């Protein structure tokens, strides 16, 4: 991926080593930079885990974006209408409502597939747009800030926000939520019976059916877990980083989480690693934007090329092992 990045810089006629150095500095040089990397990696990891769970069950959830946004909306509704609660309790409620909203949204797509045969790829894409429009509407309706001037929500009071470790950086305790989620999903997929069933359904629905597994229910459950994780990513960003919602609240996080999961080999641990890598890429490109015309928008391109390269490498390895078998 460094190669892709190098080629990109060269294509734009930038000084390659200087640009890479700026990105490195922006991602790792000091505690501010490292915090920046981890903060970007957190939603990528959570939503990436969501993608892992769905795709391992054979459900092509492209709706991480919508589920992320609904997670944020759910959190914001909680903040607005349950503000009488103790701040720390409220934070937990916001996170939980993010999970619930995302899970319901994901389960809806799963249900449409199981009951009506609507392809998950297509339904989740359409639902993404509906989620984004719901965000736009709530910001002009029920969730608009109390002065009714701009299209944002009220900013959360500091006590409700997740704990920060250092007032100089954005790093919040949501990063631990991502770590815990990684371990939980890893254990779930690898060591539990429902996790095993989920993988069987993904690898071969026919084999699962032959063994009398409730395939439809497992698929819907996988989509619910997936949506819940993506929704959690949305509410963690809300209650950890931004403290409010605005148009463009999700900067493609749910979408970019797909290649994060793919390049992580659709495994939880791999996803944690690739989320950190792309978090660093985001952090670095944000700093790079200050001195060159290239900014965050380069990240999806790098991801796209990386995914294609990954496919090609897998294919080559596969062929090699087949040749050996022959």
């Amino acid at each position, binding site marked *: 991926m460094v190669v892709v990045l190098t080629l990109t810089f060269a294509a734009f006629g930038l000084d390659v080593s200087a640009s890479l150095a700026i990105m490195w500095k922006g991602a790792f040089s000091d505690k501010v930079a490292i915090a920046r990397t981890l903060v970007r990696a957190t939603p990528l990891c959570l939503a990436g885990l969501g993608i892992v769970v769905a795709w391992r069950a054979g459900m092509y959830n492209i709706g991480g974006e919508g589920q992320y946004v609904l997670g944020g909306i759910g959190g914001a509704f909680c903040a607005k209408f349950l503000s009488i609660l103790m701040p720390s309790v409220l934070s937990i409620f916001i996170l939980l409502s993010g999970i619930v909203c995302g899970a319901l949204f994901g389960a809806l797509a799963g249900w*449409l597939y199981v009951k009506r045969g609507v392809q998950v790829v297509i339904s989740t894409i359409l639902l993404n747009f509906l989620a984004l429009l719901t965000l736009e509407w709530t910001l002009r309706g029920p969730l608009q800030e109390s002065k009714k001037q701009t299209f944002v929500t009220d900013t959360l009071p500091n006590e409700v926000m997740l704990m920060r470790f250092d007032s100089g950086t954005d790093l919040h305790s949501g990063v631990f939520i991502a770590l815990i989620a990684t371990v939980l999903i890893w254990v779930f997929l690898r060591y539990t019976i429902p996790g095993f069933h989920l993988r069987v359904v993904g690898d071969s629905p026919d084999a699962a059916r032959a063994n009398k597994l409730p395939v439809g229910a497992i698929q819907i459950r996988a989509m619910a877990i997936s949506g819940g994780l993506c929704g959690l990513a949305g509410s963690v960003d809300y209650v950890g980083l931004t403290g409010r919602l605005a148009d463009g609240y999700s900067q493609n996080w749910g979408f970019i989480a797909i290649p994060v999961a793919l390049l992580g080999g659709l495994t939880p641990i791999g996803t944690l690693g690739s989320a950190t890598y792309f978090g660093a890429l985001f952090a670095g490109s944000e700093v790079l934007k200050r001195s060159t015309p290239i900014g965050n928008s380069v990240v999806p391109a790098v991801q796209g090329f990386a995914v294609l390269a990954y496919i090609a490498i897998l294919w080559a390895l596969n062929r090699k092992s087949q040749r050996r078998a022959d």
Partner: protein
Amino acid sequence: MEALVWFFLIAQFTAPVAFAALGETVGQKAGVLNIGLEGTILVACYAAVVASAATGSWIIGLLAAVLIGAILNLVQGFFTVVLASDQVVAGTAVNLIGLGLTSTLFDAGVASGQKFSGVAGIPKLPLGMDLLLLSLPIFAWGVHWLLFRTQFGLALRGAGEYPPAVESAGFSVIRLRLIALLIGGVFAGLAGAYLTLGTASSFAPNMTAGRGFIAIALVTFGRWKPMWVLGASFLIGILDWLQVALQGRSAIPIQFFMALPYVVALIVLVAVGKGTQTPHSLGLAYRREK
């Protein structure tokens, strides 16, 4: 007269999605689900505007869009058809590349004073018609003819239904699917060209705004029949036009109207279910037997 002006206005909203959906129909009939359509159209939009700005000719812009659309689809086809990798994965990669590359090129271009608006567009005839718009029904009929009235179309459809049979009849499934993708790429290029040169004659990052995805849904909506797909596109075009026409004039939040195309597409998909018309091998890679 008035009615005709309205009709062509709505047709302008229809055309980009319709072109894309017709191309996607060919691909899906051959068994290839082109998830990368959105990214392909976006790159075609960029190519159309840049080529038109550089040469001052909309025809060159159109050709550039068609060429780049075909190339991108063949690149995707190399991965999904030749390497037999997962179609959703490769398509997603193409979408990411399309989004990332055009946004980055746009940022860099703006910084260096490149022109992204007011380029030479498709000349308008009376009533808001133009040549590309008028050719749309001909293209739709052409796709129908190709798929259902020719030997080649039969083989193509076979590649989407039961590839081994086509292979044993002496065709190459891989070649058929690549040709289908090539045709789809040309149509995606036309969609990108119309979206830019046919309307505002400008480019903006992520300007496709999901039209590629809508086009994919429209193919299912239109039951894989080109004329039905065209009709379905027109319905979505009406809904798309409605939200622009009603902007600021209605008591109901505008987002409600903006959501209509997506809601209607979803409802139709739910109503028709999977049905028996889905090409059987849609989305499945074909590996030749040894």
